[in-house]
């Protein structure tokens, strides 16, 4: 009797492990895309800055708000390009959390889908708080 329970647990554990494994691979791949993209954008921006010696803004000034950064990015101002890459990088953890919610839901792990959603909401609140200040 005892042995059977152990075996059942073992099987359950293995199955969960496999599910977690798939999830880890998905998260890892999503992260890789985000990180690589941001690195390339920052690198290009830095090259533009160093090659032209111009930041695209008055000396000592650089944009603060995402809207201003994106406006500068469209016209390819070096500072704005670097900041866009940095913005992408800052968003990768947020993105990582979002992907985790979806994968936890997919695995029907509702407890962790809930926990992760809570983390995501706190993250969004903190971004909004930053804006208000």
């Amino acid at each position: 009797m005892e042995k059977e329970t152990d075996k059942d647990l073992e099987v359950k554990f293995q199955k969960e492990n496999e599910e977690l494994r798939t999830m880890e691979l998905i998260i890892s791949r999503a992260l890789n895309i985000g990180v690589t993209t941001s690195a390339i954008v920052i690198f290009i921006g830095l090259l533009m800055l160093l090659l032209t010696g111009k930041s695209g803004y008055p000396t000592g000034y650089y944009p603060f708000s995402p809207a201003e950064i994106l406006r500068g990015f469209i016209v390819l101002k070096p500072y704005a390009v670097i900041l866009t890459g940095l913005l992408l990088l800052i968003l990768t953890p947020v993105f990582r959390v979002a992907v985790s919610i979806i994968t936890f839901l997919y695995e029907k792990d509702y407890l962790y889908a809930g926990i992760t959603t809570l983390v995501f909401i706190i993250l969004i609140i903190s971004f909004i708080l930053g804006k208000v200040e």
Partner: protein
Amino acid sequence: MTSIRLLNFAPFKGCVIIVIVAIDLPKTRSDTVVLTSLEILAFSFVAGIFGALLGLGGGIIVIPVLTLLLGIDIKYAIGASIVSVIATSSGAAVAYVRDNITNLRIGMFLEIATTTGAITGAYIAGLISSKYLYIIFGLVLLYSALAMLRKRHEELPQNVVSHPLAKKLNLEGSYFDKVLNKEVKYKVAGVYEGFGTMYIAGILSGLLGIGSGIFKVMAMDLFMKLPMKVSTATSNFMIGVTAAASAGVYLMRGNINPEIAGPVALGVLLGATFGTKIMQHLKNTTIRKIFIPVLAYISIQMLIKGLGV
């Protein structure tokens, strides 16, 4: 001339490309910018390696280097360090999550505490002067060094009794240790203590612009009794999320200067990716022994600066 010296000094892909560009440049005002960028890149690469190894987020190296060696205002150093933490975290997480060393459930569960803490910290930060930041930062580092020194001989945690909540929350797990060449199954203790320390770690992160990964690693190591590699990898996964919670605030406040944070991000990303490869082939005890003196040294430097001796 200086460019060539730096070429020898910086044996990394990204740096070398920029150095070549730098040599072709006519002498302009951007010469100093190029040199500074290269120095920042090189140091950030090293910071990325250490960050990935120890779950610390390069901030612990980036802030002292930027302020003490390059004379950059702590305001920008903190912004760059937040970026460095995210870069370390995301760069390292790619490998650690894939190789199953990160415990995703523990990470997400504790993340509730750290993100709330980070918001608290980011708002207190505006009220404290740079001088006090140096002192607090120095003390934080010194304490970390002492805590690490006590555990220098322990390879894997022994006789861990599972916390009831750990079972309920399905926190236990296993990973394959390449040095021990076996699957390591581990239990999880001290869930409440871990959660509480994570809130404080979150406050520190928002306050100092560091991921306070050291506090996260300590909480997981001392209270929850996880294997060191699981602690550092999970901390690595978490610090990025916590830092992102305060990065928005720092960006709006103008702390993230592209000329400084840009090269930091690039260097740290390259370093962290490299660091994940090294980490898996090191013993936990080895990592500790390398890092304790570095921590102690930097902490004393920061304290001296803060106290104005």
